[in-house]
């Protein structure tokens, strides 16, 4: 699992950091003047500074004291209480965190963590106010609250805006102004479809004066395959979808039909509960269809180690752990992986919980040894395959017959030299060869399939599978307080339990990711960790409202997605206003639109689209866009990358062959994850090696050339008109007068260097394809 949230600290800003810290305290905790709230104010401090020794893990617990439970913290021991509610003087915790005595002070000097004065002040007030505890917010069911009242009633477009605006008004802030129509249509189209709008679509949108023009275009775009493809991209990061096995062996696997399944499922807006059940346990559904079995490949996306060094069991178990951990990240937003070797140190997840869940994923068929290890496969022959197979069977039979007949007509000596027999044999051989090739071309999709008798599951002491502890039966983590008779007995029951609408986490985690897709960050900024160490929601009531809306709409993801995109919040400009700069630098309050750099796939696809090269539509098998020759060989990786030709050369990047140990370098450099593990949020970096990709990678050079050729073709004459057309294609807007003038001057510069108009205009298009405006969400 991988979440990339932190940013590194650039040098030399310590002082400003300290100042900023004070500002943020005001923003992140606007109600700090009111009573202390345990979850919001105290828990983050205890979890970070105290729980590793005084938390849920009994093995690490010091002095038998646990501070994560009120009973533990307030229990009397030898006449002392760690926390004596309301009585600072009698609270040992207060004395220990404020003493100067190095033998007494907490956290102890050898621990690198310290409490700062502000944190101590919070602890003090909390104890004085009676040390109230709250259950962790994310483990309580979401509650739908009424829409908050707002003063500016003209602004909200839907429920989302009420929550956002109410908070802004509470802070004395106003929302940002609406972005230009050109930027809005480009933003919506890129976000929803991953592709830029055609100039004609922009023109229609700008000319549309109806009040619901945004809602209309959103609905229109959501009905396209491109929408499903773009949304699938994020899901494939979570599903750790790749076309290779991972580990050093890293051979190809035929798992692309699963990728197609995801696209189709999103295209038909399969409700999220069904989407969940089919992927986690489609194989176990009564009368499972082929499509449902394909969906179950979700958990065959786990990397598969192969080799002959360790017992087969060890290779198998790696995959089981990955399935548990990925399920934890994707649906529960919990860092279950911590509990594989020991009880979780911060969240109430025991090692027993971990292996009880492990038991649910431990029953998949595993076959073969060493490098031939495998799991269940589904042969996916298309109708055309079947037809051709039948034809070839008949051809082979007929050719065999003719050979036999001819042989019977000849004696042995004559048969050796008979040209007719030779010809018949060649025909037979050709048919046999084609039949073999056809069989080999049928994808063998890795899918899930349950053993008739489940394996025994035992706790692996310290995570070591050779060191077995208690036997466990399938169960969900105890924090969900499910009575024994309701515990899931298998994967299917588990999947159904996840989406029965009574889980506090699943819907929140899902809508949070949707929010992240629309607003750069989730309402909870740690999308893979809703536990005690995770971030608190910036708008808890909104998160809960959306979670309830998702469930009550029948898990209609598209409906919630529409709410997010149709809101006034979404339409704000990305401009950082001076007022806001001082108050909401992190954009916690949504005072503006985020403008992250586009994902690597979108940067390439957009360039191809603008150049008129992009090939849309389904791909099926993965494709091989131009890659530096010898790139795999330099790294001694097995296999050979052969650049695709024809349409496949310019297909959407979603379909690019995804090799875990050597991703296409341009995708890798633009921060696409290797997908060896579940990725809930990509990092977005901004480095010179990326500039070299969009300037010089043959893919982008070709795009710039084709873009230039398109300009020359579509605007037969007139530099200004061509520049304007180029702007419209790349940026969906007309150039400003100064921009146009600057580009015309640039043209004169280039013409002084070369008489070749194609080269001159390719210089123009290369600049456009590298503009910050082009590379970023508008």
């Amino acid at each position: 699992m991988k979440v990339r949230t932190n940013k590194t600290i650039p040098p030399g800003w310590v002082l400003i950091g300290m100042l900023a810290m004070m500002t943020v305290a005001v923003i992140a905790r606007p109600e700090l003047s009111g009573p202390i709230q345990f979850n919001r104010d105290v828990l983050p401090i205890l979890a970070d500074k105290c729980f590793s020794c005084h938390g849920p893990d009994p093995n690490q617990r010091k002095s038998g004291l646990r501070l994560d439970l009120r009973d533990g913290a307030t229990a009397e021991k030898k006449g002392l209480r760690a926390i004596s509610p309301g009585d600072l003087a009698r609270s040992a915790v207060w004395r220990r965190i404020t003493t100067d005595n190095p033998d007494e002070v907490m956290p102890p000097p050898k621990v690198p963590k310290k409490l700062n004065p502000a944190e101590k002040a919070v602890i003090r007030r909390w104890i004085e106010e009676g040390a109230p505890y709250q259950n962790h917010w994310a483990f309580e069911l979401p509650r739908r609250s009424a829409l908050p009242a707002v003063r500016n009633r003209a602004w909200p477009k839907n429920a989302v805006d009420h929550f956002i605006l109410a908070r802004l008004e509470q802070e004395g802030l106003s929302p940002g102004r609406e972005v230009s129509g050109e930027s809005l249509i480009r933003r919506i189209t890129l976000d929803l479809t991953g592709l830029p709008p055609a100039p004609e679509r922009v023109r229609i949108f700008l000319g549309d004066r109806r009040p619901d023009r945004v809602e209309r275009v959103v609905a229109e775009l959501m009905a396209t395959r491109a929408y499903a493809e773009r949304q699938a991209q994020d899901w494939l990061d979570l599903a750790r979808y790749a076309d290779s096995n991972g580990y050093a062996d890293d051979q190809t696997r035929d798992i692309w039909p699963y990728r197609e399944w995801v696209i189709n499922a999103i295209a038909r807006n399969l409700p999220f509960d069904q989407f969940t059940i089919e992927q986690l346990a489609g194989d176990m559904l009564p009368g499972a269809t082929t499509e449902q079995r394909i969906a179950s490949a979700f958990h065959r996306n786990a990397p598969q180690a192969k080799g002959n060094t360790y017992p087969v069991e060890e290779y198998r178990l790696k995959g089981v752990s990955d399935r548990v951990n990925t399920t934890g990240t994707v649906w529960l937003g919990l860092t279950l992986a911590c509990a594989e070797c020991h009880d979780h140190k911060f969240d109430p997840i025991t090692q027993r919980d971990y292996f009880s869940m492990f038991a649910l994923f431990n029953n998949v068929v595993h076959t073969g040894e060493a490098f031939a290890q495998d799991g269940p496969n589904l042969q996916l022959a298309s109708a055309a395959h079947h037809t051709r197979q039948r034809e070839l069977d008949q051809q082979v039979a007929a050719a065999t017959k003719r050979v036999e007949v001819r042989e019977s007509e000849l004696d042995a000596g004559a048969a050796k030299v008979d040209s007719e027999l030779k010809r018949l044999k060649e025909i037979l051989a050709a048919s046999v060869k084609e039949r073999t090739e056809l069989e080999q071309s049928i994808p063998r999709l890795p899918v899930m399939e349950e053993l008739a008798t489940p394996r025994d599951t035992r706790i692996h002491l310290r995570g070591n599978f050779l060191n077995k502890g208690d036997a466990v039966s399938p169960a969900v983590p105890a924090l969900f307080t499910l009575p024994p008779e309701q515990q899931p007995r298998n994967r299917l029951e588990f999947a159904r339990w996840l989406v029965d609408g009574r889980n506090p986490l699943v819907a929140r985690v899902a809508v949070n990711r949707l929010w992240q897709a629309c607003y750069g960050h989730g309402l909870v900024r740690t999308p893979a960790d809703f536990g005690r160490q995770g971030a608190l929601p910036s708008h808890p009531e909104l998160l809960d409202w959306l979670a309830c809306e998702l469930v009550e709409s029948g898990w209609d993801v598209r409906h919630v997605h529409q709410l997010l995109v149709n809101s006034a919040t979404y339409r704000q400009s990305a401009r950082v206003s001076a007022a806001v700069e001082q108050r909401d630098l992190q954009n916690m309050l949504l005072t503006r639109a985020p403008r992250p750099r586009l994902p690597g796939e979108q940067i390439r696809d957009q360039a191809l689209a603008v150049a008129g090269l992009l090939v849309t539509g389904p791909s099926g098998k993965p494709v091989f866009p131009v890659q530096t020759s010898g790139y795999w060989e330099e790294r001694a990786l097995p296999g050979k990358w052969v650049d695709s030709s024809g349409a496949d050369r310019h297909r959407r990047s979603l379909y690019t062959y995804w090799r875990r140990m050597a991703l296409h370098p341009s995708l890798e450099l633009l921060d696409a994850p290797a997908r060896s593990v579940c990725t809930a949020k990509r990092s977005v970096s901004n480095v010179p090696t990326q500039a070299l990709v969009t300037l010089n990678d043959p893919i982008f050079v070709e795009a710039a050339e084709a873009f230039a050729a398109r300009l020359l073709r579509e605007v037969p004459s007139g530099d200004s008109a061509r520049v304007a057309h180029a702007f419209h294609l790349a940026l969906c807007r007309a150039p400003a007068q100064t921009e146009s003038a600057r580009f015309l001057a640039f043209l004169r510069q280039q013409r002084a260097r070369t008489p070749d108009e194609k080269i001159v205009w390719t210089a123009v298009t290369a600049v456009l394809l590298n503009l910050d405006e082009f590379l970023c969400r508008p």
Partner: protein
Amino acid sequence: MNDLSPHSSAGALSRRAFLQRSAAGLGAIALGSLLQARAGQPHFAARAKRVIFLFMAGGPSHVDLFDPKPRLNELDGQKIPAELLKDHQQFALIRGTPNLKGSTRMFSRHGQSGVTLSDWLPHLAKVSDELAVIRSMKTDTNVHDPGVNMMNCGSVMFDRPTLGAWLSYGLGSENQDLPAYIVLTSGSDDGQPLLQSFWGSGFLESRHQGVPFRNAPDPVLHLANPSHVSRPSRREQLDLLAWMNQRQHDALRDPEILSRIASYEMAFRMQSSVPELTDLRQEPEHMLKLYGAEPGKPSFANNCLLARRLIEKGVRFVQLYDRGWDSHTDIDREHTRQCAAADRPSAALIADLKQRGLLSDTLVIWGGEFGRTPVAQVMGKTYGRDHHPHGFTVWLAGGGVRPGITYGATDEFGYHVAENPVHVHDLHATILHLLGIDHERLTFRTQGRDFRLTDVAGDVVKDILA
């Protein structure tokens, strides 16, 4: 000090935004300590400012190179004693109970310090007084890729940050024109593959990942402009680009835009600095000879010389992978080949750094992901040695390391560590210490906890510090 990342020239907004986020406890990190490190002021005085890690991929044989075992030679051909195999899972490839195998090499003591090396390393012998040879290394796995991950990341996993990424994250870069972390590769084609994760940034921002330089006319991918773009024309393109981007910044005030302008400018500078830097023809003849380097002919020797040129320009961490040490068969032939390619340049690098006054603050590390078994893996008429994680040798030089010492020991077979064990975590703690970093305080918060290079272990090996 400057940061490679254009963040360093960005407006104040992103910095403050970041700090605010940390302060808010959202993905907060060990703010104070790290800040110091990022500001180029490590936790305490650094002895080393930069690192060259000579990674002998595949695993060199410690009992044939650094760790002579007379007793092993005596018992050559006898079954391995059972007690050595206690608590021992199994060999990587050997099956059954193998025989002990002594070394065919001659060992002698060298220099004033008397560091012992075999006759496979005649050049290294000449700089032996600079070496700190650790004969008691231990790692957690006997499989190549998890082993390389372990040596790089302190974890066998494929998704953790590598040492160079941690250093880029913790210390930043010291030059404007080059990445902080560069990877060079050489060696035999039959070696193990080099995986993306070997220079990955794991959960750290991807800008901290290593940049592999290729043995190709374009050392950095897509460094060269396409043939129809002249350098003056590219300059004019970038001027226009910067002008447009600046306008965009004026309109939106997003500091990332300034970072992007800086990125493009650095890319432009790299287009001239990198080819110049990698052009070994600029080195005098005697220098090429010292290393055994031949411009235009990729080799470990070329890479050693290039590594010196890179660190001279302020690159923080250079890792060289020399492939082909995985001698399961015919170790005499294969290790002869590897040593012939690696010995002279390794020694030349030490000598060259020394004479330039760079050795004192440049840490050189030499070793593989594990050693090789003191038992034979018999393959037909020849024999080799299998992977051996329980005791092996790594040497360090320069950068605040005590020169001319041998530290730790394996048992009489060269099998288990007998004295002063140094686990990979301890080696990492020591490397960070030499760079002025407390390994317990260089942390990154993800998945709800503070991750370290050294996981939850690691002790600085004080005895090898100068």
